[in-house]
């Protein structure tokens, strides 16, 4: 039972990370940047969903769409007026983009703090604590919903990227930005849209967490490292890789917490991360193409 519970918890936990990582993998894959503001976008999404719930009584799973819209817009603005300007200037170390995203993270976090204070907030829905028992294993209902939503979004994104012209333009821009421009693709618009979609997904991930978790201005930092691990694990830019990577990370953390120690739980993910970097540089994607 212990093992079963660990695995089930892990899979569900992983699916809670999945959308956030999906957003990350899209941004990293197309823009090739390490985005440390990603967690802050998750946080913004959570606050939006929270406000929807507290002020207007909108259920978090509906509020999610509002959050996605807001995050999409914020993502677009960041890309358009900050990152796109930065990529045009030449720097000795391309990593200066990372610092820009740190600045953005600080700004978003502190704005949230000015508006909402540092208070811890949470959303108590009727189903927040609902559980199903499956042969002695407890399954949290909101996490199960999250699991299905994550799969749905991943599938949608995958179809979008492979079947539509806009999606293909995104992939094309990722592979060769100038070449895409020669084909009449408005590449800077594409990057803006991509950052927007990535941010919207991150926000959606945040919304899924809201019924079971809590929020405060710094909450996003919890998710940055996890998203990196998953992105590298799954292979940069790979949608299917992201969801499978997320589930693997969740399960590994869960098993680590059970069989090693809760204190070392994050260590499991980090070591896995380094091992993947060293021995499977393409991530899971080396096995599953896209």
């Amino acid at each position, binding site marked *: 039972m212990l093992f079963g519970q660990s695995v089930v918890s892990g899979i569900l936990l992983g699916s809670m990370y999945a959308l956030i990582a999906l957003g990350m993998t899209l941004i990293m894959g197309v823009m090739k940047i390490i985005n440390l503001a990603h967690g802050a976008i998750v946080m913004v999404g959570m606050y939006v969903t929270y406000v929807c719930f507290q002020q207007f009584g909108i259920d978090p799973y509906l509020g999610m769409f509002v959050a996605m819209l807001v995050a999409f817009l914020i993502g677009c603005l960041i890309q358009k007026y900050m990152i796109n300007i930065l990529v045009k200037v030449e720097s000795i170390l391309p990593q200066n983009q990372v610092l820009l995203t740190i600045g953005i993270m600080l700004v978003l976090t502190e704005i949230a703090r000015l508006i909402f204070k540092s208070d811890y907030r949470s959303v108590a829905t009727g189903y927040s604590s609902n559980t199903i028992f499956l042969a002695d294993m407890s399954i949290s209902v909101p996490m199960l919903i999250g699991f299905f939503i994550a799969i749905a979004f991943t599938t949608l994104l995958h179809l979008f990227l492979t079947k539509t*012209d806009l999606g*293909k333009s995104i992939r094309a821009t990722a*592979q*060769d930005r*100038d070449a895409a*421009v*020669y084909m*009449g693709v408005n590449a800077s618009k594409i990057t803006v849209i991509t950052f927007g979609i990535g941010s919207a997904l991150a926000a959606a991930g945040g919304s899924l967490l809201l019924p079971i978790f809590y929020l405060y201005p710094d909450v996003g930092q919890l998710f940055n490292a996890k998203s990196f691990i998953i992105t590298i694990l799954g292979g940069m830019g790979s949608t299917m890789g992201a969801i499978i990577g997320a589930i693997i990370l969740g399960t590994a953390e869960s098993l680590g917490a059970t069989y090693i120690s809760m204190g070392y739980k994050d260590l499991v993910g980090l070591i896995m991360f380094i091992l993947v970097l060293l021995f499977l540089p393409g991530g899971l994607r080396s096995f599953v193409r896209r």
Partner: protein
Amino acid sequence: MLKVINLNASYKDLQVLWDVSFEVKQGELVVLLGANGAGKTTILNSISGIIPGTKGVIEFLGTDITKLASFKIAAQGIIHVPEGRRLFPEMSVKENLEMGSLLPEAKSKRKETMKKVFELFPILHEKQHQEAGDLSGGQQQMLAMGRGLMALPKLLILDEPSLGLSPVLVTQIFDIVKEINSQGVTVLLVEQNVAKTLSMCNRAYVLENGRVVMEGEGKELLNNDHIKEAYLGI
């Protein structure tokens, strides 16, 4: 059809084009010649709006396109097949071709055009599901040209299409360029393969250190002493 008047261009503080003027007429095959670094690619990039900071006027079919955003220039019907092919290596051959026909007009005729491209390059038809990155150099060059044709260009700009290709492929590529041109597509070509291009083009411009120093019909230039000395090494 295309008129470039007094074009000046610089990279940062380094000016590379000085008052370049030339013209391409409907249905022509025009060649830009010049040493390395003379600024040929820069001219082409200025036309397709990839590089900012150009001064001068570029007119296409009577409209001024100098200040247009680059992706809008493609929409005008100017398609640039860049130096070094620039394919999307992780997309299939077919997807690469589809990427060529994003604009509404081309998109509506996507199927037919693709058929025509496959007729022109049968090898692409064979490899349509393979990833572009796995093709050989010559095949990649064909795909790049095919992708350009997918946009139903009014003006096709080719930047050194024979670069790094084996002699047999060079011959093939030139044959195809002639073929495309004879089907009514206007072509602006940049090449190092001076003898070959001069013998097949309508007109040519010679560029040196960012300036047009000579222009004339292909055959005529072939016999020019300066050309012989500087470009043909005779």
